[in-house]
């Protein structure tokens, strides 16, 4: 974002643009996912209409909900550890904002061009575990504590397959920089044919599957929603939260879904780019400036497709059992992704 529209912005304007862009990149996907998938698609799958009263087709329902949450009283249990209790949702939301900072949305439209972007992404996504543990413990409630512990166990277990799945892409791209990964996918060709670029989903389909399953578990969406299992644990670590602190948890959940979908589309689907051959671009420097506006739209489309799949799975499957969940991560996903790394490395060296 240093030279957007070929205009050199002063530092304060860049910072303002970054803050605004970050807020939009977190809140817009969250709002769209909640309305389109959580309200409308779920209702459709359950043969009902969903919210219809507020605005045309209930499209203003989201504002009604946010207004409702904001005016609720901010309650903490009497014996809760108030400071930790209040900080917990913010830690979870902070992890989401840190995540979005590394996603490239266009040739110049990125927040930071982090050299070890993939690694950074994996690191900051693990911070949310801390917030969930804090919430579970500080609520002074057995159900919350159980939910928090379940969440921590689950997030640790599924972080590993996620890391290992991403390594396949890193080996193939030869870089941990997300921007470089996007450019590689769009400028490479498949056996000399460059009409499609070279999205890594073609060669790394196994890694893509493992990554999406791990994302599903990291977001604690059904079938991996044991931490908030409403029939066993009331609402897990969120039980004692109300008002805007619950809202923060809620936003963080769906915003993180959006951000992970952004990252998955960067790693596997070619990110913001179109195949460079379409417009005769050679490298990043010859990409036209309009991609700074087209890129975010392309990213948004891919993000909606991926979150659509995440939500589709969420509404379709029943919950795993706790031991099945752990076994699935350690005995299926991790070996599969290790084999994937091996095969990718062999091919990388051979060709």
């Amino acid at each position, binding site marked *: 974002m240093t030279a957007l529209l070929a205009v050199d912005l002063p530092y304060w304007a860049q910072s303002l643009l970054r803050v605004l862009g970050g807020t939009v990149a977190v809140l817009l996907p969250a709002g769209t996912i909640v309305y389109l998938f959580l309200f409308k698609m779920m209702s459709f799958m359950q043969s009902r209409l969903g919210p219809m009263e507020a605005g045309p087709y209930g499209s203003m329902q989201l504002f009604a909900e946010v207004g409702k949450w904001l005016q609720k009283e901010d309650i903490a249990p009497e014996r809760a550890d108030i400071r930790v209790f209040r900080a917990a949702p913010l830690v979870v939301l902070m992890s989401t904002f840190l995540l979005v900072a590394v996603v490239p949305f266009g040739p110049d439209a990125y927040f930071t061009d*982090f050299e*070890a972007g993939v*690694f950074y992404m994996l690191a900051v996504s693990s*911070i949310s575990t*801390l917030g969930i543990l*804090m919430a579970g*413990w500080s609520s002074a409630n057995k159900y919350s504590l159980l939910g928090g512990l379940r969440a921590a166990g689950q997030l640790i277990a599924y*972080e590993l397959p996620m890391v290992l799945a991403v390594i396949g892409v890193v080996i193939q791209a030869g870089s*941990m920089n997300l921007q470089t990964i996007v450019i590689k996918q769009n400028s490479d060709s498949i056996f000399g044919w460059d009409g499609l670029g070279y999205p890594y989903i073609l060669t790394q389909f196994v890694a893509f599957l493992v990554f999406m399953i791990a994302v599903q578990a990291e977001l604690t969406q059904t079938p991996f929603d044991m931490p908030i299992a409403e029939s066993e644990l009331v609402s897990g670590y969120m039980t004692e939260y109300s008002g805007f602190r619950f809202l923060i948890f809620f936003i963080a959940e769906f915003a993180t879904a959006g951000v992970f979908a952004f990252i998955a589309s960067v790693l596997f689907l070619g990110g913001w780019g179109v195949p460079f051959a379409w417009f005769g671009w050679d490298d990043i420097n010859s990409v036209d400036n309009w991609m700074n506006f087209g890129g975010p739209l392309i990213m948004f489309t891919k993000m909606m497709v991926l979150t659509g799949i995440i939500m589709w799975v969420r509404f379709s499957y029943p919950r795993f059992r706790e031991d099945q969940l752990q076994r699935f991560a350690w005995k299926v996903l991790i070996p599969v992704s290790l084999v994937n790394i091996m095969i990718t490395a062999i091919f990388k060296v051979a060709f």
Partner: protein
Amino acid sequence: MLLASDIEVAQNIGFYLIAAVMVLGAINVVRSSNVVHAALSLVAVMGGAAAQYLLLSAEFVAVTQVLVYIGAVMVLFLFGVMLTRAKLGKDIDLNNKGGAAIGAPVALLLFGVMAYVLIKGFEDDRIVTSGDEAIGSTATLSDKIFSLYALPFWALSFVLLAAVIGAIVLARKD
């Protein structure tokens, strides 16, 4: 020779702010009368260390610090503490009586030794924080690890492997 023009003001302000947070956090780790509060203060210290690495433009080390210490070690720490003893509120037995009398000299001694070693070892050396020579960049780091330091790296990975096997042996029921 350190010149006034060499001093980067913003970096220094950042350093001292983060250092203050780290020192306060570290004191809270040993003074707190609640295990979980102590652990959370330790998280602040670890996060501060990561931020200091970033200031030195050692981004790979900084991210590793976050991934390993905050994301894994501290989470496991908290996990273990919460599974076993994690009272809300104050825990009177937590701090040893007269801990400061023994702790303070040890801390001072440690500080003295480390400060002496650091100053003696590096003297006027300056860290290159930008350009191709920057030691913190991921590419330089990996080049170093897999060429100059390949042997220690292997040795370390054997130690880790032994630890993993040991954990499995301990955890198995049969």
